[in-house]
């Protein structure tokens, strides 16, 4: 199946999306998924992700094509939220389906590293009623450097 890449402005149900994804891929021997959610604690009341319409989704689709070119997959799902989210709410869901599990693990890992450090999203957190923009972390750049 082709890539399923979505940029959503409202909350989504990761279990339902994953169920629909795997139902179409009975021949895949393994499906690896990653769910990122808003971390509770550290005084974070809400998280907002901003995107830029002309760039964000097209770049996510390009990333999906790169992942497919690099690993032999039966299917790839990339779902990313934009807008305001509360602690515990899903932000991102990546699922890679493959005949063999190692391809699926690596593809999901690669997709997440590149979503974190290269996708066109800007993040801010609300703490004590004040919004604070979040700068990219050094770890994100180190994560992406692993892939050469």
């Amino acid at each position, binding site marked *: 199946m082709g890539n399923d890449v979505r940029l959503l402005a409202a909350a989504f149900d990761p279990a339902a999306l994953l169920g629909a994804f795997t139902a179409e891929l009975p021949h895949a021997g393994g499906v690896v998924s990653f769910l990122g959610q808003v971390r509770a604690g550290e005084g974070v009341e809400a998280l907002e*992700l901003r995107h*830029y319409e*002309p760039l964000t989704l097209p770049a996510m689709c390009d990333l999906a094509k790169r992942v497919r070119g690099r690993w032999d997959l039966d299917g790839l799902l990339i779902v990313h939220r934009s807008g305001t989210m509360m602690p515990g709410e899903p932000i991102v869901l990546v699922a890679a389906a493959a005949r063999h599990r190692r391809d699926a693990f690596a593809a999901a890992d690669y997709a997440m590293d590149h979503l974190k450090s290269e996708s066109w999203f*800007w*993040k801010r957190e609300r703490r004590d009623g004040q919004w604070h*923009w*979040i700068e*990219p972390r050094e770890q994100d750049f180190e994560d992406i450097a692993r892939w050469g």
Partner: protein
Amino acid sequence: MRAKLVFLGRLEDVAGRAGEDIAASAPLDWYDVIGWLGGHFPPELADAVVSEKVRVAINGALVADKYELVLADGDELAFLPPVSGG
């Protein structure tokens, strides 16, 4: 010519708004745009967008070297600070 400027991420806070229309008698180069920003916004905005960490896109296409850009009628110029997604 008329064009649109878009400020993403923290640049929106620095500018005080998400976008601005720009009008001029002829297409603008990068230095014209920076000069125009300096005349219409707090000086921190022009200082921020000249940083090498700030990329720019015209009509959704990334510009490889912003010092070479030409902003023409109907264009949308977006200022893109470092991303922090996921």
